[in-house]
């Protein structure tokens, strides 16, 4: 009898203990639940830095683990491969990347409410200001002057920090992609978004002049008609869209559409469109503004059968696969060419290149003198040893040696030093084809081991003191030489300029928006809610409008959408956003 009692008592205790153990994690609040898709992250996110240290020590020898909360990363987990080796050899630290893009935005809420976002923090400036206010970021003003590579940007860093609310000379953030040129110049050859077409298909049609968007549809229609499939026999489309980034980067609506509004010099600032004059705002629901125009353009494209029917339901990876397979005839992001243009294709003329449309007027952000908008910071919870390590690392990250690894790659693998001391690129397909790196850098694929932080303190267009040229290989004299192919020569002959940006400047088709650093107000809870609801409505309707079956349906949807948006509080949001962005617009106009 006694044994039985004992067993039941034990069972009861065990149950009790297991219940209490269960509430250890749920105790931190109902608001801090993890989304289902963050499953892979639970082990690292819920534990504090103390326990992860020990976990990492077992993983990677005695290297100190640094948690990097990284809004720019497309990868989550410990940095691996050659970049890990480079960092570990110098600082004996292992970078553990925490990516809201991978884990879902809820991870931001979870980590901030736990009071420790990360050891190194990389955030968009509005979030960064919130975190400074909440005491999550460390003041580094006392130590910054001791780190010469960071201090080289003292002007930009102090301009940024003095804009933070209630700041008295503290330094919290280090802007990203800074450049020591000037805030109004534009020194790149291509701009972020412009119509890019396949040169071989375009010249096959006899290089017709394109007057407007209808002309563009016409040309793309002829291309698709002549080449309905790629070499592998898969169907080709003029455009293939993806919904993954909708509402990102301070722009309401379908990411692919808002990007195309820059073709008419207009730029979305959240729910408002800044017109080409750079001064006046108009609601995104304005029928005379570019959002409507571009949506109508894509709708007409779809009517002509030029839009990939999977657009809107496929994800980014599926869209990438199509770009790499040559199933898409028009690109619009400058980096998209990375999925198609190779040295070989530049040689044989099948590469993508900018083709002007006569009535367009392209918007471009000026050189990022004050940085691109994201900000690095150090978590307020780090101990002294870690703090010193992080500063050393960040200083190296902004040093010529660090920048060469970030922007140029590995010496002897990605580039060689020529007789004149300037660099010559080799293995330029390393990233595309994930080539194995030399053994001394740990083998493994180049792309796999690439720097997963995916954001840089100094822009790749900065001048490398070792060569006197930019870090980005696109502007090396050796690279320019080798890419001056027949195709580029033909292009230059036809349009009378060497590079797209040069053509735009010459023909007065470039609207340069000066680079400024102005802190932006963060949303109140109510505005934030209205914003996300309006964004969902705008995106959902926009997608349906692209696939509308008739003009009447298209217009009916637009009106319905406008009414729905108003019912969700769009007018309040628009008013808020105009006030939010006005200081930035004023600052830009003051520089012009």
């Amino acid at each position, binding site marked *: 009898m006694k044994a039985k009692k004992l067993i*039941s008592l034990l069972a*009861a205790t065990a*149950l*009790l203990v297991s*219940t209490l153990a*269960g*509430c250890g994690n*749920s105790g931190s*609040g*109902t*608001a801090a639940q993890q*989304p*289902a898709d963050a499953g892979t992250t639970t082990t690292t996110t819920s534990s504090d830095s103390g326990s992860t240290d020990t976990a990492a020590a077992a993983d990677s020898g005695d290297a100190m683990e640094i948690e990097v909360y990284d809004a720019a990363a497309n990868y989550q987990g410990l940095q691996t491969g050659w970049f890990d080796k480079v960092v570990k050899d110098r600082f004996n630290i292992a970078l553990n990347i925490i990516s809201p893009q991978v884990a*879902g*935005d*809820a991870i*931001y*809420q979870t980590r*901030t*409410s736990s009071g420790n*976002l990360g050891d190194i923090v990389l955030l968009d400036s509005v979030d960064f200001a*919130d*975190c400074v*206010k*909440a005491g*999550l970021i460390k003041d580094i003003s006392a130590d910054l002057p001791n780190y010469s590579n960071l201090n080289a940007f003292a002007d930009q860093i102090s301009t940024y920090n003095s804009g933070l609310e209630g700041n008295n000379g503290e330094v919290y953030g280090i802007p990203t992609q800074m450049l020591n040129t000037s805030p109004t110049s534009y020194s790149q050859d291509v701009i972020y978004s412009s119509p890019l077409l396949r040169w071989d298909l375009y010249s096959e049609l006899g290089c017709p002049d394109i007057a407007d968007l209808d002309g563009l549809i016409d040309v793309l229609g002829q291309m698709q008609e002549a080449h309905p499939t790629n070499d592998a026999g*898969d*169907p080709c489309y003029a455009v293939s869209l993806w*919904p993954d980034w909708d509402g990102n980067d301070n722009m309401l609506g379908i990411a692919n559409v808002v990007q195309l509004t820059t073709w008419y010099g207009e730029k979305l600032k959240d729910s408002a469109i800044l017109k080409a004059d750079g001064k006046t705002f108009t609601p995104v629901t304005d029928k005379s503004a570019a959002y409507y125009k571009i949506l109508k353009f894509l709708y007409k494209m779809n009517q002509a*059968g030029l839009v*990939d*029917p*999977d657009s*809107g*339901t*496929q994800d980014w990876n599926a869209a990438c696969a199509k770009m790499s397979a040559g199933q898409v005839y028009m690109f619009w992001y400058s980096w998209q060419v990375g999925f198609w243009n190779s040295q070989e294709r530049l040689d044989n003329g099948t590469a993508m290149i900018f083709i002007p449309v006569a009535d367009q007027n392209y918007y471009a952000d000026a050189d990022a003198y004050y940085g691109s908008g994201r900000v690095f910071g150090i978590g307020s919870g780090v101990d002294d040893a870690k703090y010193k390590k992080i500063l050393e690392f960040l200083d190296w990250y902004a040093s010529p040696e660090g920048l060469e690894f970030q922007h140029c790659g590995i010496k002897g693998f990605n580039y060689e030093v020529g007789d004149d001391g300037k660099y010559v690129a080799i293995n330029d397909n390393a990233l595309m084809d994930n080539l194995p790196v030399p053994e001394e850098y740990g083998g493994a694929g180049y792309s796999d081991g690439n720097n997963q932080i995916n954001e840089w303190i100094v822009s790749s267009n900065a001048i490398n003191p070792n060569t006197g040229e930019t870090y980005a290989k696109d502007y090396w004299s050796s690279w320019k030489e080798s890419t001056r192919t027949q195709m580029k020569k033909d292009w230059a002959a036809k349009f009378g300029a060497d590079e797209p940006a040069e053509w735009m400047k010459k023909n007065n088709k470039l609207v340069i928006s000066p680079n400024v650093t102005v802190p932006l107000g963060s949303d*109140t*809870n*109510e505005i*934030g*809610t209205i*914003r*996300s*609801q309006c964004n*969902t409505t705008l*995106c*959902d309707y*926009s*997608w*349906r409008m692209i*696939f509308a079956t008739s003009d009447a349906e298209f217009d009916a949807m637009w009106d319905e959408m406008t*009414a*729905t948006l*108003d*019912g*969700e*509080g769009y007018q309040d949001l628009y008013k808020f956003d105009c006030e939010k962005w006005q200081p930035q617009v004023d600052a830009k106009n003051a520089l012009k």
Partner: protein
Amino acid sequence: MSRKKIRGYREFLYVLPFLILVAVFAYYPLYGWIYAFYDYKPPALLSDSQFVGLKWFTFMLDTEIKRKQIWQVLLNTFGISGLSMLFSWFPMMFAVFLNEIKCEPYKKFVQTVTTLPNFISWVLVFAIAFCVFNTTGVVNSLLMDLGLIKTPIAFLKSNEHIWFKMWLWLTWKNAGWAAIMYIAAITGIDEELIDAAKVDGANRWKTIWHITIPSILPTYLVLLFLNMANFLSNGMEQFYVFQNSFNKDYIQVLDLYVYNVAYEGGSYPLATAIGVLKSVVSIVLLCVMNGISKLTRGENFI
């Protein structure tokens, strides 16, 4: 202290762990409702947030459009749950027919094949759906090769009969698993009843109709009532993976709506307020069901 009292305490101790379990997992989370009454926004703490009373409840319903949206979400929830309720006899009939298969290996094969999908997550189900039904998927390729269609059909983008399609996916995934209970119930039927029916000249149909189905009907009713309890929680994973801009209006059920508002929009107070609304609707539903039960069976179930 009397022996009886001591025994009372001891027995209370036996049940205590379960009481704690209920308190921690059923009542403690109710504390989270507090977020619905504050202007809470991370990274600020709740203690730094302003108390706003019922602001978020009025915010949820303050314009015609928003009321319409919430109504549509409720309609979707009721529609989809109602549909699966309406077809809840399907697994039972499946079990009955499965039981009639006389070839044992074939029967085992069918049972295994239909049970397996239950163990696949919805994410993988969608991956399969995408491979089969996207514009370059198996179905479209087949139809194009046969010359039946000229342009691919975007199945996943259409919102026609979406509730029914969702029910089909759910059934494909769950029917085999749900049938297990009925198969167990069928094995429990007294063989003598069936033998007696055969002697009386009943054919197979008549045996099914007069013996098998009446015998497992109580099981069916119990499961039906259990399902009723989940009427509003018809799961969000399925709809989360299948939702896109084209079908969202008709696929967004309450749980998914709460998720979309909280995690995509980052608005915890509003999401909590909607969660509270869900509980209120649940209680109303429960009372209605209880009333029905009282009317039809003469007894309460709460």
